[in-house]
């Protein structure tokens, strides 16, 4: 092995993540005149959740109207703020929600000016595609002079004298570690979808940045809140995890049935059904309702429920679909075979799948973490959306990315280049190369499969004490006993996927453990966190965030009160569905899906 310190790459600002948040951060930092290096686990702009987003970008309706779209001229920032905080069941960090509402319009406008494709618009959103967002940002980042390195997984952060000093990466194609030395680091690594199967994310999302931040001593919060997209295809396997039917259900209609053929959503309050099917509240409502049916034994053979087009005439249904998806083509996928199935009115197995993580790294309004020099942006952070996200995560990533880029550049201008401690690198390399060096041990593929199956069963949209305790016990055991014994069959260093999976498991396991422990601790139901054994929202005791940080080798949990700037939360303990109904009815007079 070549001496590590001869392979140091030095930059002012290191951006980790090649999706929308990372690219937007790179653009802003580069504009400020510092050197920027962006490291992406896949190919920047061609990987991550951004590319797979449907996608809409949200902004206030009045600004949208001013930009020449119909929008909603009667909209105000106050109204939108009200809607985001009530959708979030008041758990939102209102300071961050205000930043989101304030900056959304100018960030979206920028993308429009840079050539973003727009297919349609509604009151508070423009409809574009994940490909177009990623493409526009990638081109811009290159123009601004950001340097990009692809197919490198950042394994951990480097620290020096209590500040961030860079990161250690693994070049996945060559199997060599890379030392990145920088004055500031921006984490923009998205969620940890890979903990679940099925999931609605892309394959590489294993929470690498969130887990690295935790190991480095950063605070995480709200880790129990996970949005499960509803109506995600479970079967056939080739479409497993695809959100196309979710999109079709919200734009063209259809029915969700259990195995007895019952339209189970109609059991719920009409207000909840109305908002919960016609707006993006659908993820929260339909996923919980579906999970309850599945738990009661009324699920499909592959553990889901059913989608069918219902009573609507096929011609009308197809017309709505193909006005957006010509020839039944969604992204690069030809869904004409699905069209035949739907036309025959054959039910398709669908269900909840992990789609968005409300929890993550704690940041302030400058996107600063509690570690000097460490910033974070996008889905890997927490706060804007509270307990339930309805407004767009794509807007979150560009708003927070721009701030993180600006603030990290300012920070970098005022500090010297940190020293790299070789001892820290040696220790990390021992961990990284462990699975390759071990002769026998635990197989990463088998362990990952087992974890994904249990996560799906025990930490889905509906939670209960017994399941959480079992799962926590399992995860603690895996963390202490199995992770140090991970061993790959192939010992080849070059593009060894089993090895990549072993490194990802380190992150998935700790994040699941933190999430399950937070879910157990939160003895109430709020937003996307539904406790069947605590089916009420407790505004007297639980208007607080669960914070976790590492002490020694163990996660330690505390709480902090929610951050309020202008909207006072409700009081009292309310049945969950009543609280949801109340939050839905608190929506302003601005229509649309958000």
């Amino acid at each position, binding site marked *: 092995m070549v001496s590590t310190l001869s392979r140091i790459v030095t930059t002012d600002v290191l951006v980790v993540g090649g999706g929308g948040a990372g690219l937007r951060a790179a653009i802003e930092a580069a504009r400020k005149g510092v050197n920027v290096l962006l490291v992406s*686990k*896949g*190919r920047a702009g*061609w*990987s*991550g959740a951004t*590319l*797979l987003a449907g996608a809409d970008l949200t902004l206030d309706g009045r600004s949208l109207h001013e930009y020449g779209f119909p929008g909603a001229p009667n909209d105000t920032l106050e109204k939108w703020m009200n809607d985001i905080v009530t959708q979030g069941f008041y758990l939102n960090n209102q300071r961050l929600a205000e930043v989101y509402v304030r900056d959304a319009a100018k960030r979206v406008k920028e993308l429009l000016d840079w050539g973003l494709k727009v297919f349609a618009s509604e009151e508070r959103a423009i409809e574009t*595609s*994940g*490909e*177009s967002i990623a*493409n526009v940002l990638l081109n811009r980042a290159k123009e601004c002079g950001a340097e990009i390195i692809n*197919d490198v997984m950042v394994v951990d952060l480097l620290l020096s004298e209590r500040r961030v000093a860079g990161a250690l990466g693994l070049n*996945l*194609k*060559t199997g060599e570690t890379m030392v990145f030395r920088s004055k500031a680091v921006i984490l923009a690594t998205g969620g940890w979808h890979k903990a679940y199967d099925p999931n609605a994310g*892309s*394959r*590489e999302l294993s929470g690498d940045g969130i887990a690295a931040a935790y190991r480095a001593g950063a605070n995480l919060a709200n880790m129990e809140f996970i949005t499960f997209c509803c109506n995600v295809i479970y079967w*056939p*396997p*080739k479409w497993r*995890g*695809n959100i196309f039917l979710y999109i079709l259900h919200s734009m063209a209609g259809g029915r969700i049935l259990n195995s007895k053929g019952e339209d189970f959503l109609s059991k719920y309050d009409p207000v909840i059904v109305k908002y919960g099917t016609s707006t993006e509240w659908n993820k929260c409502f339909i996923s919980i309702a579906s999970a309850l049916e599945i738990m009661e034994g009324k699920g499909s053979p592959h553990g889901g429920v059913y989608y069918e087009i219902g009573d609507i005439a096929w011609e009308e249904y197809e017309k709505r679909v193909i006005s957006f998806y*010509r020839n039944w*083509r*969604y*992204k*690069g*996928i*030809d869904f004409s*075979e699905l069209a035949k199935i739907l036309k025959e009115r054959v039910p398709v197995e669908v269900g909840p799948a992990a789609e968005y993580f409300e929890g993550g790294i704690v940041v302030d309004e400058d996107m600063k973490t509690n570690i000097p020099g460490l910033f974070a942006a996008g889905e890997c952070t927490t706060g804007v959306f509270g307990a339930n996200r309805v407004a767009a995560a794509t807007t979150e990533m560009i708003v927070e990315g721009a701030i993180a880029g600006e603030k990290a550049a300012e920070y970098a201008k005022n500090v010297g280049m940190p020293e790299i401690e070789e001892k820290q690198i040696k220790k990390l390399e021992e961990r990284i190369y462990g699975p390759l060096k071990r002769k026998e041990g635990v197989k990463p*593929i088998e362990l990952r*499969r087992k974890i994904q199956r249990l996560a799906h069963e025990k930490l889905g949209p509906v939670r209960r004490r017994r399941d959480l305790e079992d799962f926590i016990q399992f995860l603690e055991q895996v963390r202490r006993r199995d992770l140090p014994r991970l061993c*790959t*069959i*192939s010992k*080849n260093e*070059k*593009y*060894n*996927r*089993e090895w*990549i999976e072993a490194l990802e498991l380190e992150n998935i396991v700790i994040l699941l453990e933190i999430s399950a422990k937070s879910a157990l601790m939160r003895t109430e139901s709020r937003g996307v966190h539904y406790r069947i054994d605590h089916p009420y929202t407790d505004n007297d005791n639980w208007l607080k965030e669960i914070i976790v940080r590492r002490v020694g080798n163990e996660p330690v949990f505390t709480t902090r009160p929610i951050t309020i700037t202008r909207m006072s939360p409700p009081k009292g303990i309310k049945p969950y569905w009543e609280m949801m109904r109340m939050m839905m009815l608190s929506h302003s007079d601005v229509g649309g899906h958000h």
Partner: protein
Amino acid sequence: MSEKKIKVKVFRFDPRVDKEPRYQIYEVPLIDGMTVLDVLDYIYENIDPSLAYYSHAACRHGVCGGCTLLVNGKTCLACQTPVTGDIVVEPAVKFKVIRDLIYEVGQEVKQHEE
């Protein structure tokens, strides 16, 4: 249930140790609607985890182009190419192979927008 099996002939090569490429044949149960990427995933997960193909960040939506390969001699996206019978799978660029089906790509990733 009778299970149909297909033969999958895969290009294997590690330039660091092998003098020349070889082909390895795997038997894979054919599931209705399987794509080439599903077949490679099956091999990786159940038969031979040493097989290298671009998978850790493949989008599976026919967008990213990461899974571009030669299947039966034709360039295609593995994630959108259905499998109905025996196949031969090779890297799209044979002279730039890093290992097996992984090859060096420049910054010229193709765009697959509709």
